[in-house]
């Protein structure tokens, strides 16, 4: 029997409450001291297309997903058809027996290619092209089938609470599927009830109805099938204070903490969630006084406090330029976007670079080019971020590997922007934005805000915004500061900021601006530039950047537990590139494996460009779904065994 190591998946049409169901499942596990990693997949669609949420549970920290599913929770046909074949032989399928007769051809939302594959799979197993066929095929492998009479249970809830309109109970079927899963896993119902109450906290009566329904499904599953099931979940004592964080919150919380007080955005998936989170929390808690409820109500605090202005602009051009304008006035300002929006920001980023404006751009990568696959994952924008805009211009590019890094890196991004007076592009992605995780409570005490070299009010009329200094950094004045009149222009300019085409001044200004990158490379602490994980002296070294970190670390854990030696160099500062440090780590390795969620292995190219070192292997993926722990484990094993081709392309994921 496997205890507290589980992958659970729920799916359903978009708009049917799959997210809340997963939220209940994840929270119930988390309340019981278990750790979770959740991954959300969905179409670019409002309603009706297939979405799913996959949660991996463990007593230890989990940072990635596994492809095989132990418990598949469904309440409709499509999820069952799409995912049943990935359920482990010792796993289970929770389903509504009423959908068993649904045929594949009755479901228009499964793409033609996937339909063909599915039919071929079922035909090969001698079963029908229907939900029943998929169930039969699963049963052949020993998968436990758990039918839950969902209509009957919903009717019972309706009777109990005198609900005439069954539409009010449309979400209850999801809760039934969640709760039946828990019954099967013999988990503690108290934690489930707590999670149900939390998720439906806005309406007590709805919470009560769902809790009642959850009990029905839980008992049904436990009584009928609980005893023999190969997987179990049980609460454990948590040894630390833990939070349950969704990806879109991590950067938002970092912005609040960093002192970002103006954020602009134009709606785009998957970046907008962060801006909406900020807008919903525009008034921020400040000061010791705010600790008491009375103080929170006081007129003083209502009129004096930190707040963040979130502006939905007419396009991304306005988003970056408005953020620039606010930064000129001294506000820590940012914008958040994704590939297509980032494309529109080029000119505004160049303007910020030539005028030495500290502005932060949070770039949520998604599958491109063009509209690409708006809700799917890719790390395709590294070169683009480094070279965004025309001309030679300084910018700092950082990339976070997980939600914790996303949080702390956001504060650092603003510090870098203000210290080096240039745009900072902070790269995250769809995989991070749509993942959910239990994490240790963020360590706030060590966080520091560094605003860089600032000008002071003066009365001699001699302020020069772009004063040439040995460091290349000029004291920064903000609009409204007495005696600091300055000019900005997108043209090349002199020390005061007036247009010039003088060749000598041009050279001095180029050297001033670009020199700041050398300074940044020198000053930014090594731990913010790269991180080394695993065996220092391993012959085989993985190099990567961004959100692949979780799957790499989890795969390495498995490999190292099996006695294999492997190291991982994670790049966190991509521009300026930490060339010497990277070269030092890479030199002398037998195998260097570049792992990236893109076609071109862009980091491998950058490494070659900056160090002259060619990686020996690449492991890439570009079908839009994040890398899983198991496929990475397999591809790294192949490298360790000396059996890997130079390029491995991963392809798992529905």
């Amino acid at each position, binding site marked *: 029997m496997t205890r507290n190591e589980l992958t659970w998946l729920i799916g359903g049409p978009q708009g049917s409450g799959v997210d809340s169901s997963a939220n209940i499942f994840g929270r119930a596990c988390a309340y019981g001291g278990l750790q979770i990693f959740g991954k959300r997949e969905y179409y670019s669609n409002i309603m009706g297309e297939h979405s799913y949420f996959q949660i991996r549970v463990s007593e230890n920290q989990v940072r990635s997903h596994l492809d095989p599913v132990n418990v598949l929770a469904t309440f409709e046909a499509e999820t069952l058809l799409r995912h049943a074949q990935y359920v482990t032989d010792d796993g289970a399928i929770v389903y509504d027996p009423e959908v068993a007769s649904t045929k594949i051809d009755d479901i228009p939302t499964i793409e033609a290619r996937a339909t063909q594959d599915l039919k071929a799979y079922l035909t090969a197993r001698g079963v029908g092209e229907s939900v029943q066929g998929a169930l039969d095929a699963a049963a052949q492998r020993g998968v436990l089938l758990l039918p839950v009479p969902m209509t009957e249970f919903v009717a019972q809830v309706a009777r109990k609470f005198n609900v005439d309109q069954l539409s009010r109970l449309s979400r209850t079927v999801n809760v039934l599927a969640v709760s039946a899963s828990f019954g099967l896993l013999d988990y503690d119902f108290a934690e489930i009830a707590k999670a149900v109450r939390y998720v439906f906290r806005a309406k007590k009566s709805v919470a009560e109805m769902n809790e009642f329904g959850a009990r029905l499904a839980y008992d049904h599953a436990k009584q009928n099938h609980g005893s023999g099931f190969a997987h179990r979940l049980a609460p454990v004592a948590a040894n630390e204070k833990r939070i349950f964080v969704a990806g879109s919150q991590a950067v938002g*919380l970092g912005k609040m903490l960093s002192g970002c007080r103006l954020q602009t955005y134009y709606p785009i998936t998957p970046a907008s969630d962060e801006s909406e989170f900020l807008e919903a929390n525009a008034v921020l808690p*400040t000061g010791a006084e705010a600790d008491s409820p009375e103080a929170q109500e006081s007129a003083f605090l209502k009129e004096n*406090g930190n707040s963040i202005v979130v502006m939905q602009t007419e*396009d991304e051009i306005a988003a970056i330029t408005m953020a620039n304008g606010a930064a000129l006035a001294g506000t820590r300002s940012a914008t958040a976007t994704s590939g297509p929006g980032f494309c529109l920001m080029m000119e505004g980023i160049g303007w910020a670079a030539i005028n030495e404006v500290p502005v932060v751009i949070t770039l949520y990568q998604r599958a491109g080019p063009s509209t690409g696959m708006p809700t799917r994952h890719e790390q395709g924008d590294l070169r683009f971020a480094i070279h965004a805009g025309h001309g030679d211009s300084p910018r700092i590019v950082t990339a976070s590997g997980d939600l914790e890094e996303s949080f702390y890196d956001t504060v650092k991004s603003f510090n870098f922007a203000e210290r080096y007076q240039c745009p900072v592009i902070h790269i995250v992605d769809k995989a991070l934005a749509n993942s959910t995780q239990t994490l240790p409570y963020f360590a706030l005490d060590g966080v*520091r805000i560094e605003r860089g070299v600032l000008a002071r009010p003066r009365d001699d009329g001699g302020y020069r915004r772009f004063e040439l200094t040995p460091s290349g950094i000029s004291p920064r004045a903000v609009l409204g500061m007495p005696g600091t009149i300055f000019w900005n222009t997108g043209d090349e300019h002199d020390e005061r900021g007036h247009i010039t085409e003088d060749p000598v001044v041009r050279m001095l200004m180029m050297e001033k601006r670009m020199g700041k990158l050398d300074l940044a490379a020198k000053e930014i602490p090594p731990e913010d530039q790269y991180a080394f994980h695993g065996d220092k002296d391993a012959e085989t070294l993985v190099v990567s950047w961004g959100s692949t970190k979780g799957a790499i670390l989890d795969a390495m854990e498995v490999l190292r537990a099996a006695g294999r030696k492997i190291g991982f160099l994670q790049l966190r500062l991509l521009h300026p590139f930490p060339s010497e440090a990277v070269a030092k780590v890479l030199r002398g390795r037998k195998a260097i494996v570049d792992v990236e969620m893109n076609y071109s292995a862009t980091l491998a190219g950058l490494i070659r460009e900056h160090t002259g070192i060619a990686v020996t292997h690449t492991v890439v993926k570009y079908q839009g779904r994040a890398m899983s722990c198991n496929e990475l484990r397999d591809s790294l094993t192949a490298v360790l065994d000396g059996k890997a081709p130079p390029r491995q392309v991963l392809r798992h994921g529905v």
Partner: protein
Amino acid sequence: MASEVLLRPADFQSDVHNDWCPGCGDFGILKALQMALADLKFERHNVAIFSGIGCSAKTVHYVTTYGIHTLHGRVLPFAMGAKLANPSLQVVALGGDGDGLGIGAGHFVNAGRRNLDMCYLIFDNGVYGLTKGQASPTLKLGLKPKSLPAPNINDAVNPLWLALASGATFVGRGYSFDIKHLRDLIAKGIRHRGYAFIDVLQPCPTYNNLNTKDWYGGEDLVDAAERKTPRVYKLEERGVDPVVHTLEDTEAKQLQALKYALQWGDAIPIGVFYQNEQLPTFEDRLQDRIPSYAVEPPARQVIADAQGRPTVRLNKLLDELVVT
């Protein structure tokens, strides 16, 4: 904010060499702007002038306030960002007709929807001067200034109509060769509580040989007694009251403004077409959401203590996420 020592218009003149063509209408606008700033008794550091790209955009380098010369078409979002961050700044945006109504048309419309308390001037000469005289969005269909190889194939947008349709709460038009009138109009626009748009008719002596100083002055409109009738006339001299005194006036005043804004040809009105201070500004609307906005707008918030520790108490939000 009034200063102790009042600044004269000349005090707002920088030492930067002005490279506009001789006879350019921009000189009059620069002068009128400097006079308006002096009349408004502004201190330099409380004024930020933003510009787009083009001849007009160089204006900011000739003025001794903060001068932010931005990107082609993007002057409004830059200016709005600064105003939102620090609403006590006096923010003036300016640029050409191509800048504001061609490449920047989207921002032109959305600035109207927001109604921030700021003033935007368009230097309207019908051509793209700095790139050698191509047709701009205010050049009428079929016109052929000498810089065009063929008559204009596009029709013109009406800036005043577009401003009204977009929600601007102050819509005016000035003429660069009537400096005193323009000075007062700019001062009114800046004083206006909300978003003021002013279209300034500005002959380009180098590329637009149709809408010239002589043409606006009516040199060709001579009666039997050889008297000239200037094309440009002042709305206020015809007793037009553009002000929305109560919200019920709105439709009538908008229709009146649209009517006068249609006039062109031998009679071209200048002055205030429409003014409505009965509507909440964007700052008012933000204030409703964020009670501390007026006292502590973004740029005035203290975000860290002397040791760099953040002032925000993030633990209050993190506590809501705690599961164990």
